[in-house]
């Protein structure tokens, strides 16, 4: 197994506030990594730095052999391989669901328009929303929006999928549908990094759970190890709060 994502000694500050204090992480192809931890611990910032939505101050991030910390890197090429799903969906409200799906593949010359539409239909069917192809996103529920957003990211045939709290903005009854789509994706062998507060999903789907606190990775391991037998004091404290809430 080779690491498809490597992070070495990553530092990131917003002004005087250092949010990433020297992180190291390697993720293998096909691995599902779930990042948990209290808010403000740096997990979202770290995730966003993996496709350079945040510029890191020092260290190295290597995605599929490309060092994206280098200033000269063509980040757009790397981003084509790294799909991202946001907490607030960020569907394009002026375009229909189908137009959202085909915009990037067609604009970037990955596919012809008809190829992109065929592919989009397959993906929409997979997330159970084929009948919504021609509506505007604002007519969809939160859960439907997020499933479209996942399908939109998949339309680029990515090798890696990043999920930034994909269910945090959803009503509880919508969460299940979105998680089901993600589980299926994991089963198919997609490399995934997921920031989430859904501990059930972490237990069930993750190959590895990474616990963040104060800009550091405090602890990582198999879900059983982390949830049944946490070593770090902060991890115990955190799990106590979220599991017994």
């Amino acid at each position: 197994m080779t690491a498809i994502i490597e992070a070495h000694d990553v530092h990131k500050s917003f002004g005087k506030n250092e949010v990433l204090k020297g992180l190291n992480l390697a993720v293998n192809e096909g691995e599902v990594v779930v990042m948990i931890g209290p808010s403000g611990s740096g997990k979202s910032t770290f995730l966003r730095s993996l496709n350079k939505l945040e510029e890191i101050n020092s260290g190295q991030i290597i995605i599929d052999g490309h060092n994206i910390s280098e200033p000269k890197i063509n980040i757009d090429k790397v981003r084509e391989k790294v799909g991202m799903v946001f907490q607030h969906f960020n569907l394009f409200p002026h375009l229909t669901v189908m137009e959202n799906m085909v915009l990037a593949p067609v604009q970037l010359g990955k596919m012809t328009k008809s190829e992109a539409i065929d592919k989009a239909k397959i993906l929409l069917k997979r997330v159970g929303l084929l009948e919504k192809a021609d509506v505007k996103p604002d007519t969809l529920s939160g859960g439907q929006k997020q499933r479209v957003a996942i399908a939109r990211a998949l339309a680029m045939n990515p090798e890696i999928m990043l999920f930034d709290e994909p269910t945090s903005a959803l009503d509880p009854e919508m969460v299940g549908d979105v998680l089901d789509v993600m589980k299926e994706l994991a089963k198919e062998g997609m490399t995934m990094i997921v920031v989430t507060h859904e501990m059930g999903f972490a237990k069930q789907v993750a190959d590895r759970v990474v616990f963040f606190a104060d800009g550091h990775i405090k602890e990582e391991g198999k879900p059983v190890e982390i949830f049944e037998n946490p070593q770090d004091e902060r991890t115990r404290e955190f799990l106590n709060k979220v599991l017994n809430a």
Partner: protein
Amino acid sequence: MRKWLMSLIALASLAIGVLISSPAVHAATPNYTITTDTTFPPFEFQTDKGDYRGIDMDMLKEISKRENFTYKLKPMSFNAGVQAVQAGQVDGIVAGMSITDERKKMFDFGTPYYKSGIVMATTDKSKIKGLSDLKGKTVAAKTGSAGADYAREISKKYGFKITYFNDSNTMYNDVAIGNTVAAFEDQPVMAYAIKQGTKLKIVTDPAKGNWYGFGVKKGANTELLKKFNTGYAAIVKDGTYDKIVNRYLGKGSYNYKKNAADKVEKQTTIWSLFNENKSALFTGLVKTLELTLVGIVLAGIWGILLGILGVMPSKFARGLSTTIIYIFRGLPMLVLAFFIYIGIPNLTGQKIPAFTAGVITLILNEGAYIGAFVSGGFKSVDSGQLEAARSLGLPYGKAMRKVVMPQGIRLMIPSFINQFIITLKDTSILSAIGIIELTQTGTLIIARNLQGFRVWLMIAALYLIVITLLTWLSNWVEKRIK
């Protein structure tokens, strides 16, 4: 201490006494409000000390002394003055005002006091030697002046066009920089201006000899008119009047001649007034719409460019956009119009046609406002939209064009409609540089027939009708886009 208090009380009671008795003082010496042109030398002009001098001013002062009345001088542009008399805001006007048959319908004039004539003036180097050289050229005249009437009368015969100005200085400047080839002006005014250093020369003999008169609103202020006439007769008799004229023109050539009898005033309704001026109003309206459409389209392009510049990643581009918007939003549009139409040609010697200057003014001024709301609109699109587009691998430019801008433009549509209406109204400011659009058309009609209320009512109604139609059209477009 007591002495001090006593004197204070004495002073106070004196002041009260003056206050109480002052109405009586007023009754004894009537006080009038009289208007004059702001600048019409040698008849009236402001000295560097701020007071008004000139033939009219000295004459009025002398007459008021002899006839025992006081007056408050209210200088304003000739057109405004004419309208102020008709509106009853002032009692009389002394402004080197030619007595014409048309004006006699609305004014009562005192004894005609000065005989003038219209001359044509060109620059020193001009090839224009007389009226016959004017074919195909454009000349300058002052709105509502006898010179303008004369020019209009002979314009067909000699085949020239006329641009109108609201004051003499602007008109002389326009000829000096070559926008227009000649100015039509009253002889004493032109002679005096040249004596004062204006670089023009008179090339024709005085034509259309006409008399200047002191005017009051028809049927009103008969006592003031009587006082003027008596006082005027007195200063002519003892030679004071000749002295006054000599003071400004160097030689006295005064010969008195009685006016022709007044004509009967024609009755007009607002509808007949509209019909009489239908074609002029229509032409003016078309010019206004032309300015608006050309202006808003070009200003829109320029504004969107400024707006895009304002959200570029480059600091230089953003700074440039902010600076341009700051400058042109800060300048009053009238100043900008004069700067482009008169200022720049003064510097470069390259003349700019009034319409072009007007359109450039609109582009720069309205464009700055558009630029501000365009970049604001782009900035108000949720930052997650750009992030999502970029995370799909779209480069910055494509992400902006395909995702951010279409959403921003939707947010801007109400502002665009608003700016469209503002632009339409702002075109009226461009009347100042002689573009005969709707407002200037109104000014010209009033200068001839003096029917201020009715004409401005018509003009206002026309603007409202057009703006209503535009608003409907814009709302329809807005709905279609949504």
